């Protein structure tokens, strides 16, 4: 329970600082400044990674709930999908595979000699 509160406070501090940064310099959305700041403060040891780990992973695992209000907005687009559904899906598929091939080919060519196996994977 203590760790949950610790995680909430850590994330809130980063988000509030992100908002302040955004209001001063603009640019990225506030939450992205918050994300980078959170990563930096964990790296510097200002926040204890062991304490946030559990609650943080729980949060990431369940964050899908926040997307539903946006996703339901599809309700206003039945007509668009009737008219352009195939084009939309085709554009998504084609560009996704261009991106995957591009990154895959370049990484295979330039980075494979430098890499070592990445260790611990956290599920989220």
């Amino acid at each position: 329970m203590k760790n949950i509160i610790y995680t909430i406070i850590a994330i809130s501090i980063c988000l509030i600082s992100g908002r302040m940064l955004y209001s001063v310099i603009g640019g990225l959305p506030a939450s992205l400044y918050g994300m980078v700041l959170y990563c930096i403060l964990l790296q510097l040891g200002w926040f204890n990674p062991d304490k946030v780990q559990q609650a943080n992973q729980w949060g990431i695992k369940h964050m899908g709930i926040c997307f539903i209000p946006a996703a339901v907005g599809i309700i206003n687009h039945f007509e668009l999908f009737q008219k352009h559904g195939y084009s939309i899906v085709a554009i998504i598929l084609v560009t996704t595979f261009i991106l995957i091939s591009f990154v895959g080919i370049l990484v295979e060519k330039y980075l494979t000699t430098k890499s070592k196996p990445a260790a611990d994977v956290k599920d989220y």
Partner: protein
Amino acid sequence: MSFDNINLIDALILTLMTLALYQSISWAQQKWQLIWLNPMLFSTIVIIPYLLVNNIDYPSYRDSTQVLNALLEPATVALGFPLYQQLQHIKRYWKELIAILALGICIVMIISFSLTMLLIHQTEIAIALSLKSVTTPIGITLTERLQGDSSITAFAIMIAGFSGAILGPIWLKFINIRSDIAIGLAIGTGSHVIGSIILSKNNLNQGAYSSVALIISALLTALIIPIIVPLLLPLF
């Protein structure tokens, strides 16, 4: 928060209903290990007919569930933790990694935006489809900032996620790409969290690489899209 159009009890009921629905679908997904039983997708499929039958329009639903939408921001901040965890793995080649991802994102963003403008002629759809490879919380935030349509983004992100996660590894094998790092980074960039989850089931290395790629590529997209869209817009 504003509750002008709705009353609080209805808002509470709709929010709790959404929560319960999401939780039961994700429980079923876990229990039977069905990756395709995506809780966001199936909750949406249940909620839309419910709203239509009960004559609830989208603005009222959205206002009622604004608490959930407000959680997008802390959820995005929480992604800083996996970024921190993976940082040591990318230290050695971060410059090359950023160069490759930034180039790929630029090219694909230009193609998606232009194709959509040519075929559908709607800027808000073009913006949404340009953001389809970004992890959902960041994709939705960016779309709303650029006045795109975030429901299309949510839909597109899901298609990009499942198609790339399921067919991507087969395709990469076919074009002779076999290293864990190339497969992980490629699928993470194209298919974000869904790709990462599916890769992690078979190969933890690929999963780890894909989770780095999805966060870095989301950050790069946030930096690149406000530059590219204003450049492309006058062309159409």
